[in-house]
C-alpha cells in the first residue's frame, strides 16, 4: 500500500485477527476491520462477544493468535503497548490512586521524556479541555465518577495518540451523566480530529455517537456500517434484534409475498421462495381503519412513552407485534381490546439473511 500523507495515512487495519483463551470457542474469530483516520468507530455487542478482547489486542495487552494489526503502513502487531501510540480509557478509569490529577495526566508525557515546562503547559491544556482546571492537586479518590472519567480522558489524549481506545468508558456512570459525557466525547472527537475505537454494549450510545459501528457476536463481526445502515438494514436476526426494538416476522415466501401463519400476506421488497424472515421496526407501522390495511390487529397493551405510544398488538395466528405511533394518532382506538388496521411501506420490512 502506498500511503503517504493525507487521508488514511494513519488508518488502523485489523486483518483476520483471532484469539482464543484456553480450549473454549475463540474469543475473537477472524475479525477484519478498517478504521479510517478521524473516524469514531464503535465495537458493539453483548458481553462476551469479543469486542473488549479485540480492543485489548489493538492496545497490545493481548497478543493475537493469528492476524495482523496495521497502523498506516506499519505492522504494529509485534510492538509492546508502550510503543503503539494508543491512548486507552478504561471502564473503571484506572487512574493511579497514589498520584494527583496533574501527575496522572502528566504520566504519559513523563514517560515520553517531554521537557518539564512543556509537560506543565500540556497538562494544563488537557485539563482545561475536559473542564477540570483547578483540580490539579486533588487525588482521584476525591473526584466523582464523571470527573474521574474526564481525568482518564485527559490522560489519554494529552499524549496525542494515533488512536484513542475506549473500553465502555461510560458504563459506570448514571444515565444523565452518561448522556452529558457522550456529548463531551463527541465534541472532543470533532475538535481534536481523533481516531477513536469505542467499545460498548449500549446500542443507543453506539448509534448516537459513531460514524460507523461493527456489531459483534460470538467473536465475529455480524455487520459493519453506518448507524443508519445498521438500524435500517440489519443483515440478520441477531443484529435486527440487538439494535433497537424490532418485529421479526417468519413466514413462507412465494414471490413478492410472505405467507404468514395467521393467513395474511406480507408484501416483500424482493422476491423469495421458501422460508423467509423480515424485520420491521415498530415506528414503521402505521394505523388505519380495520380492513383498510395489510392486516388487522387487536390492541393488547398501550404504553404511553411521552412523545409516542408503544402498542403491543396481537395479529392473527397468535403472533405479537410492536408498533410505535404518534401519541395523537387515532387516539380513541388505542384502548386494549380495540381492533386496528396496520399498514407500512412495501420496502419497510428488511429481509434477514438467516430465515
Amino acid at each position, binding site marked *: 500500500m502506498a500511503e503517504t500523507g493525507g487521508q488514511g495515512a494513519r488508518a488502523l487495519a485489523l486483518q483476520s485477527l483471532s484469539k482464543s483463551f484456553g480450549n473454549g470457542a475463540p474469543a475473537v474469530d477472524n475479525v477484519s476491520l478498517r478504521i479510517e483516520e478521524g473516524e469514531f468507530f464503535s465495537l458493539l455487542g453483548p458481553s462476551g462477544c469479543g469486542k473488549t478482547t479485540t480492543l485489548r489486542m489493538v492496545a497490545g495487552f493481548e497478543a493475537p493468535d493469528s492476524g495482523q494489526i496495521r497502523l498506516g503502513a506499519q505492522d504494529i502487531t509485534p510492538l509492546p503497548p*508502550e510503543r503503539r501510540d494508543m491512548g486507552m480509557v478504561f471502564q473503571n478509569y484506572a487512574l*493511579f490512586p497514589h498520584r494527583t490529577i496533574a501527575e496522572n495526566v502528566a504520566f504519559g508525557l513523563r514517560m515520553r521524556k517531554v521537557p518539564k515546562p512543556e509537560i506543565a503547559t500540556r497538562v494544563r491544556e488537557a485539563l482545561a479541555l475536559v473542564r477540570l482546571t483547578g483540580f490539579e492537586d486533588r487525588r482521584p479518590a476525591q473526584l466523582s465518577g464523571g470527573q474521574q472519567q474526564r481525568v482518564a480522558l485527559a490522560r489519554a489524549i494529552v499524549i496525542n495518540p494515533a488512536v484513542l481506545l475506549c473500553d465502555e468508558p461510560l458504563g459506570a456512570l448514571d444515565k444523565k451523566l452518561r448522556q452529558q459525557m457522550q456529548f463531551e466525547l463527541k465534541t472532543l472527537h470533532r475538535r481534536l480530529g481523533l481516531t477513536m475505537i469505542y467499545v460498548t454494549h449500549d446500542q443507543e450510545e453506539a448509534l448516537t455517537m459513531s460514524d460507523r459501528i461493527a456489531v459483534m457476536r460470538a467473536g465475529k463481526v455480524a455487520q459493519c456500517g453506518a448507524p443508519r445502515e445498521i438500524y435500517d438494514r440489519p443483515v440478520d436476526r441477531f443484529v435486527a434484534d440487538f439494535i433497537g426494538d424490532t418485529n421479526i416476522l417468519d413466514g413462507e415466501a412465494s414471490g413478492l409475498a410472505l405467507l404468514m401463519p395467521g393467513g395474511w400476506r406480507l408484501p416483500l421488497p424482493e422476491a423469495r421462495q421458501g422460508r423467509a424472515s423480515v424485520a420491521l421496526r415498530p415506528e414503521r407501522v402505521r394505523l388505519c381503519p380495520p380492513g383498510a390495511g395489510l392486516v388487522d390487529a387487536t390492541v393488547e397493551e398501550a404504553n404511553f412513552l411521552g412523545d409516542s405510544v408503544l402498542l403491543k398488538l396481537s395479529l392473527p395466528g397468535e403472533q405479537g407485534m410492536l408498533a410505535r405511533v404518534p401519541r395523537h394518532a387515532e387516539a380513541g382506538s388505542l384502548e386494549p381490546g380495540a381492533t386496528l388496521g396496520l399498514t407500512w411501506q412495501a420496502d419497510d420490512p428488511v429481509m434477514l439473511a438467516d430465515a
Partner: protein
Amino acid sequence: MAAVTAHGAPTLPRSSAWLLLTPALAMFILFFAVPFLTMATMSVLSGNPMVVPNPRFTTRHFERILDDVYYLETLWITVRLGLSTTIVSLLIGYPLALWLARARSRTTRTLLMMAVLAPMMMGLVVRTYAWLAMYSNRGVINGSLAWLGLTDEPIQFLGSEAAVVVALAHIYVPFMILTLSGVIARIDTRLEEAARGLGASSAAAFLQVTLPLSMPGILAGSLLVFALAISAYVTPIVIGNYNIQTLPMLVYQQISSSFNLGFAAALGIVLLIVALLLVGAYNRVMARAPGAA
C-alpha cells in the same frame, strides 16, 4: 498497622457492641495486658513480690543495662539481625509474592502457595536443625564446595551472623510473602496496563505503579518479620553456635540461671521500647512514600 474501616456496618446499640467485644477483650487483658503489666512492674521492683515480702521501687535494672556496654552491644546485634533478616526476606519475598499474586493459572497459584506454606508446617526447630546440617563442616554446602574443588577446607558458617540471617530469613519469609501477595493481588492490573499504554516499559510500570501501591504490604510484612526476628531464640542460638548473643537469650539466661526476674523484665522492656521506636520511625518514613494512601 492496617486501618480497618467498616463500610455500611449495621448499627447496634452501644451496650450490645461492647458485649460482642467481651471475648476478645478478655483474651487481650488476660494474655497480653496482665503479663505485660506484670513484666513492667517486675522491671522496677527490687525483688520478686511472690518471694521477697517487701520489694522496693528501683531503677537499678535499667541503670545496669545502660551502664554496661555489653548489654547495649547485645541490643545492637539483636536489632541488626532483625534489620538484615527483614531486608533479605523482602528481597526474596517480593518477587515471589508478585508471582503468586499475578499468576493467571489456578494451578500455579496453588502450587506456589503450597511451596510457601509447607515449610511453615514443619516447625521452626526442625527447620533450624536442617540449617545446622546444611552449614556444618561436613554439611551440604561445605560438601558441595569441596567436591567442586572451590575450597580446601570447610568454611565456618556456624557462628557467623550471615548464617543466622539466612536461616532466619528462610524461616520468616513466608510471613513476608503472604502479607505482600495479599496486598499486591488487590492492586488492579489495569493500572499497570494504563501505565504501559501511556508509554511506560514493563519495568517503569512496575516502579511507578505496582511498587508504590504495594508499600502498605511492604510495611506490614517488614514489621512482622522484624518483630519475629528480634524475638527469635532457637535459631540464633543453634546457628549462632552460642557465638552470637541476642537479647532474648540474655532474658532467658536471667530467668533460668540467674533467677533475676527483675533484670530479665527490664531487658524485655528495653527491647520493646527499641522495637517500638524503630517501628514508629519506619512508619513515618513509609507514610511519606508515594504509595501511602
